[in-house]
């Protein structure tokens, strides 16, 4: 039945395409990506035997636009899913297809779409291939600009659940007012104010024999963004009514979340202050779902995001059941021709973030915290809990030494609550100190050498690590990379292993092919606080991508 539904829009799409070719109108764009890996059993790193020996994920996007219409499809194939991705993706099909019509102030989308209300506290649908995350809506969405500076959008849909859909129906409306555009007396003002509000409701039938479950669960959010000169203030508050679920072990307490972000920036100097409180804000279109399935909302992180491997060994995972914390970052550029600035200037940033649990006390209807079928707990809005989840202090220095040679140097001091964030019950805290030296030397306009040195020191988990990565690039076509991460500090001498990777990539125009070999450690991977576990693996990797 699904395929029958798919063929009709595909047929229409290609009919339009053929016609468009004839009329020399319309545009067709697309991209294609294949990631393939072979697997070898490696008992030392607990890499399991993969019966298929080779696994593959592939994606192809096609978007056609003509006049006011845009239509698109995405084909996906998982044969079978790469290790670490959810095996429920196994198979292939066209899970994403849409048609959008836009005329003047009105935009209508039928089919699949992604969207976000405000910061995403009550609604965000997006795709993150690295995580195997895709909570796209399938339904209808209307956007309408009522007046200059005033816009609304409304949507109704079910969410993608692998090659199927979740059981819940999500309805949402969001409005935004740009006061400087709407109000004449504000149009010349130096202060820019944008106000927004949204409401989302999900419906899921109550089939539970024990609990009286709310079939319609509503959530609302209000937000404000004020900018004046170098100062920006952004905040959003969200509230959700009782939503007993597998996430909160079926308690009936309402949920709430608050985000505050303030920044000041002028040339060579910047300050960023963040604060957040999340209380029982898991919001899914299936109350029994777990993992990263069927999230309606997204709870942003305020911890620093890194691209370096060692700084991602212990990433923060958003605690939707409750977290409270803050962060600050100061950036400064020492000017050129000063003692610390040298010939080209020096950038330094100091960052600190810390997140704790919530302070919980027994609710009014029972004497024990967190019991299913009760209000669960009470929590004072302004008091953090005693349990530390995560603390990151880091200093980053970015320095250009000469026209050809530049470097980026990072020190990080980390406290990571492994029990709470990884739920591995192995140890409570990991205390880590990490140093990264990332250096780039441009031999000439085409050739460059990139060296990354890293050291991670911890007495917990797998102990100390060092790493070396060397990359050589011949722009714009060739790229060579070798790296070794050595777990020399593992308490178990048999597990003091090297994790080698090697890769060669070739790019020509919009086409890129990469071949590599790698031994990957078991770990956890997070993007924006959303995480999945990554099993150990050992094998060859082939990645192909192309776009037009």
């Amino acid at each position: 039945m699904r395929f029958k539904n798919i063929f009709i829009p595909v047929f229409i799409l290609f009919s339009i395409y053929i016609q468009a070719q004839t009329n020399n109108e319309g545009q067709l764009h697309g991209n294609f990506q294949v990631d393939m890996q072979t697997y070898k059993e490696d008992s030392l790193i607990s890499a399991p035997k993969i019966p298929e020996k080779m696994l593959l994920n592939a994606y192809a996007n096609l978007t056609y636009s003509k006049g006011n219409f845009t239509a698109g499809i995405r084909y996906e194939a998982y044969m079978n899913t790469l290790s670490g991705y959810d095996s429920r993706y196994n198979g292939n099909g066209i899970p994403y297809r849409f048609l959008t019509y836009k005329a003047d102030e009105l935009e209508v989308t039928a089919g699949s779409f992604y969207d976000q209300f405000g910061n995403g506290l009550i609604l965000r649908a997006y795709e993150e291939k690295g995580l195997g995350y895709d909570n796209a809506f399938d339904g209808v969405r209307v956007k309408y600009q009522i007046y200059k500076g005033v816009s609304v959008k409304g949507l109704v849909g079910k969410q993608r659940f692998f090659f199927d859909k979740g059981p819940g129906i999500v309805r949402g409306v969001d409005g935004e007012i740009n006061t400087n555009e709407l109000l004449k007396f504000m149009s010349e003002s130096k202060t820019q104010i944008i106000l927004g509000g949204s409401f989302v409701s999900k419906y899921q039938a109550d089939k539970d024999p024990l609990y009286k479950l709310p079939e319609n669960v509503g959530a609302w959010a209000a937000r404000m963004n004020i900018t004046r000169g170098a100062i920006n203030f952004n905040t959003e508050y969200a509230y959700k009514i009782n939503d007993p679920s597998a996430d909160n072990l079926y308690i009936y307490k309402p949920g709430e979340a608050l985000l505050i972000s303030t920044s000041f920036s002028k040339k060579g100097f910047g300050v960023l202050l963040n604060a957040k409180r999340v209380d029982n804000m898991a919001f899914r279109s299936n109350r029994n779902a777990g993992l990263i399935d069927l999230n309606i909302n997204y709870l942003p992180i305020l911890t620093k995001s890194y691209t370096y491997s060692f700084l991602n060994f212990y990433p923060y995972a958003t605690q939707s059941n409750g977290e409270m914390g803050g962060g600050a970052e100061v950036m400064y550029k020492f000017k050129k021709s000063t003692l610390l600035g040298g010939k080209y200037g020096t950038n330094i940033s100091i960052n600190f973030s810390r997140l704790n649990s919530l302070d919980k006390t027994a609710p009014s209807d029972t004497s024990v915290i967190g019991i299913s079928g009760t209000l669960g707990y009470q929590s004072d809005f302004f008091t953090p809990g005693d349990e530390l989840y995560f603390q990151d202090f880091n200093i980053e220095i970015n320095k250009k030494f000469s026209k050809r040679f530049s470097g980026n140097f990072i020190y990080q001091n980390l406290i990571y609550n492994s029990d709470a964030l990884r739920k591995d019950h192995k140890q409570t805290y990991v205390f880590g100190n990490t140093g990264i030296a990332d250096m780039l030397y441009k031999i000439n306009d085409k050739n460059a050498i990139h060296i990354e040195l890293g050291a991670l020191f911890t007495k917990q988990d797998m102990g100390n690590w060092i790493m070396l990565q060397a990359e050589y690039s011949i722009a714009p076509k060739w790229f060579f990379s070798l790296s070794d991460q050595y777990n020399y500090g593992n308490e178990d001498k048999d597990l003091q292993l090297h994790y080698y990777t090697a890769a060669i990539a070739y790019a020509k125009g919009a086409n890129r092919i990469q071949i590599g070999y790698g031994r990957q450690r078991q770990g956890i991977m997070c993007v924006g606080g959303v995480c999945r576990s990554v099993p150990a693996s050992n094998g060859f990797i082939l990645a192909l991508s192309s776009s037009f």
Partner: protein
Amino acid sequence: MKNIIQNIFLLLGLSLIVIIVSCDKIEGPYTENTEVIPLQCPVPEFPALQNVYKKILMEDFTGHTCINCPTAHNILNNLISTYGDTIVGIALHVGFFAAPNSSGLYTYDFRTDEGTAIDQAFHVSDVGLPQGMISRTQYNGSYIIAPFSWSTVVQSLIGQQPKLALQIINNYNETDSSFCAHIKLTFLENITDTLMFFCCLAEDSIIKPQMSLTVPSPYNIPAYNHMHVFRDGLNGNLGVTIDPTKTDKDSSIVKSYFYNLKQKDFKHKNLKIVAFVYKSSNNEVLQAEDEKVK
């Protein structure tokens, strides 16, 4: 300007309607009356406790198109042969391998909402089947245990002291195809952990097809004997919380459930009640028990 105000009021009005119709605020008590002893199920007299020992719950995650799963079934049956009623087995048909086909041999749907919820909670089928959980204890840092390790783990758990006893009495009513299940929990020591109680219905000897590596391609065994099949949950996906004020030494609680078997394709003589108690903090099963319905 007048139009804008009209439009804004229209939108506010529509939003208000959406808000009003889209929220179900539930007032306590939040549980249905199922935890109250059903009228048709008067609690019987339970015999005095004798020879209480800690039983081991074996949850076998399986599927009818999983060709390696019969090997795991055999391992579970061998463990039951070796350790007798110390092993309480249950087979949860979950994930891709349990999905029914639209035609052919494998059209029967063994899956249940509760089984799927347990699978999702512990991410079992994500790592491929067959897999098991043994009293929901961790082995090598994981709840999910491969069949070739089951024997090792069971051996390590045998002989532990029981912290509570479970007794089950089922009263089957042939006339209206229903039964009452009564489960008595007696605490043998003071327990301060938050405990959960889970109760479900399982069925032995369901003759349906199964794929198996033990037969030549296309690996079909058309009349396979499916044992310990999880059929339905009696108290939710995760069970119910046990009142923490009633878990002192020598305290006891009786849970009673009424179950109507009409319109179910279950063979009554093959049905059994499986009950277990686990710690909310780390999921460890403290005691398990099973008893035939008829």
